[in-house]
């Protein structure tokens, strides 16, 4: 917009910049605080007054974390479920979407109806639990990755994405005698990287953050996820720190407090997401807009 900036422009701009700075601060500072608390000695953090930089810098919290078999195990389970679960759901959802994207597909309308109903109607947690129990999935690693193999939200997005791909790409391979699976694997998937990246980020962060399935469907202690473990620690500290007067006294005697383990676990759990997130932002904004257009 050209033209001179009026007084109103200046006021609007100033107010806007001030408010947006406050919003950015409110969003980012909690992450920053958790980070500095994880590098600060636990007993010192408990004294309070930690705002900008670690006061008593230490790596003890991290070495404690990586020496506790309970946390290592949980970390391993979480990495594994994220890798396997995300790969499975990205591939399976794309495969089904590839079929449904074909406009000449016979019974296409019926298939869509089946998917749309499934998207909107649910039997509730208890019935789902009964089904998982009957399938023998309770207390297995499979419960983390199998029921999430098909993402209905991304099924719709992937269908409209695949329909944008020029049919000529697959046509010549089909004439050369390539099978559909081969066309899907070596032609469709490679040209769908933006879609795969969006799905990977979303489904990956869902897998990484999931804890309810660990709480509901798993009793085996060695199958707990890192998020579930964090929930346990936070639940313990939330009540104890707020009710017993000597909680601070008790924690102050230890170098590594429950709180410092908790913030360390939080940093470790946020870290992988922080690493991939900025690179995939462009894609997921596109994906989200595509999703919003389709409703």
């Amino acid at each position, binding site marked *: 917009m050209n033209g001179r900036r009026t007084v109103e422009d200046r006021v609007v701009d100033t107010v806007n910049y001030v408010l947006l700075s406050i919003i950015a601060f409110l969003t980012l500072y909690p992450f920053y605080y958790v980070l500095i608390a994880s590098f600060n000695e636990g007993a010192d953090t408990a004294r309070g007054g930690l705002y900008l930089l670690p006061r008593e810098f230490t790596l003890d919290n991290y070495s404690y974390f990586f020496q506790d078999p309970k946390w290592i195990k949980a970390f391993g389970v979480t990495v594994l479920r994220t890798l396997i679960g995300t790969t499975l759901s990205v591939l*399976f959802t794309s495969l*089904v979407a590839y079929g449904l994207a074909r406009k000449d597909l016979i019974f296409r309308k019926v298939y869509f109806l089946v998917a749309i109903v499934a998207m909107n109607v649910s039997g509730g947690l208890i019935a789902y639990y009964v089904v998982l129990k009957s399938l023998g999935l309770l207390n297995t690693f499979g419960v983390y990755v199998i029921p999430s193999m098909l993402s209905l939200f991304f099924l719709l997005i992937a269908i409209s994405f695949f329909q944008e791909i020029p049919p000529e790409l697959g046509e010549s391979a089909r004439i050369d005698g390539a099978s559909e699976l081969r066309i899907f694997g070596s032609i469709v998937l490679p040209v769908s990287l933006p879609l795969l990246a969006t799905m990977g980020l979303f489904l990956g962060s869902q897998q990484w953050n999931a804890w309810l399935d660990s709480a509901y469907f798993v009793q085996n202690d060695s199958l707990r996820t890192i998020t579930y473990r964090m929930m346990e620690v936070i639940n313990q500290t939330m009540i104890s*720190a707020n009710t017993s007067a000597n909680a601070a006294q008790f924690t102050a005697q230890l170098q590594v407090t429950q709180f410092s383990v908790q913030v360390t676990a939080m940093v470790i759990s946020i870290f992988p997401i922080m690493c991939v997130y900025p690179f995939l932002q462009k894609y997921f904004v596109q994906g989200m807009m595509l999703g919003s257009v389709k409703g």
Partner: protein
Amino acid sequence: MLKTRTLTPSYLENTSQQEDTFTKRFRKQITVQIFVWLGLLFLLVFSYLPMFGILMAFKDYKITSGIAGIFTSDWVGLRYFKELVNDYNFPNLVRNTLVLSILKLVFSFPVPIILAIMLTEVRSSFVKRFVQTASYLPHFISWVVVSGIGFAFFSTETGLINNALMSLGLIDQPLDILTNPNSFWGLAVSTAIWKEAGWWTIIFLAAIAGIDPSQYEAAQMDGAGRLKRIMHVTLPNMKGSIIVVLILSIGSILGGGLVGSNFEQVMLFGNVLNSETSQIIQTYAFNAGLAQGRFAFATAIDLVQSFISVILIVSSNAIAKRFSGSSLY
């Protein structure tokens, strides 16, 4: 080809050819059909099978009888629904569920709209991108981490905010935010906005990006300042997406609307001390169901909630259709 065409009557020929192409077409696309069937099989097991589980709400179901028990158990009619309504917790549960959901809708709904307008009004593309990136970030963080952050900031002993206010001499007693029934709703609403509001701005930013720039130029010619242009160009153009998002929010209101999971929040921020305001229908169903093993009763609770949700989404859609012409379906 030519020969058969002349020999067979045209109506017969047509049907036989159609059947022929149908099976031929089907056989040709059999691999792709199998891809889709795999997906349908998945839905059958993980979506449709649980739907039959709704029957449990009306049956004397025992978990030991497995899936078959859903169909073979004895009918008990509305017994579990009566039990729920007569439960002394019931009025409290309904109040908490509704109040929490409505507060979230009222306070969280305008935030992404305002944020999207603010972001569009920023001239510096660096600032714009920076604030956007920052505001989406919490969406990718689990509720568990959010509750950990809540603990780090609000706990009475080690909480950053209490420490800061105490050392500034603004308060002499730490504020009890995490275990006080009076602060639970505020805590739940504000953490939900913190986590999800930035995320929903994407949709509104897309709506604003689609506005024809000539509308702004015309408004400017007519002497409209910045605020007038926002009021008379930006907002009216956002109407469609605002309505769609509003319908989605109302439809999912009992689950926490667009700003996320009431259930997870109550599981994480709720505790024995604030249960008076934090216990909601879903957490009650969870406790009755999986924790105490009362599967049929819990299913009845789930069903009551789904029923209210369906009524809400259908009626909000109808209202939106009547007043604005835009609707989801």
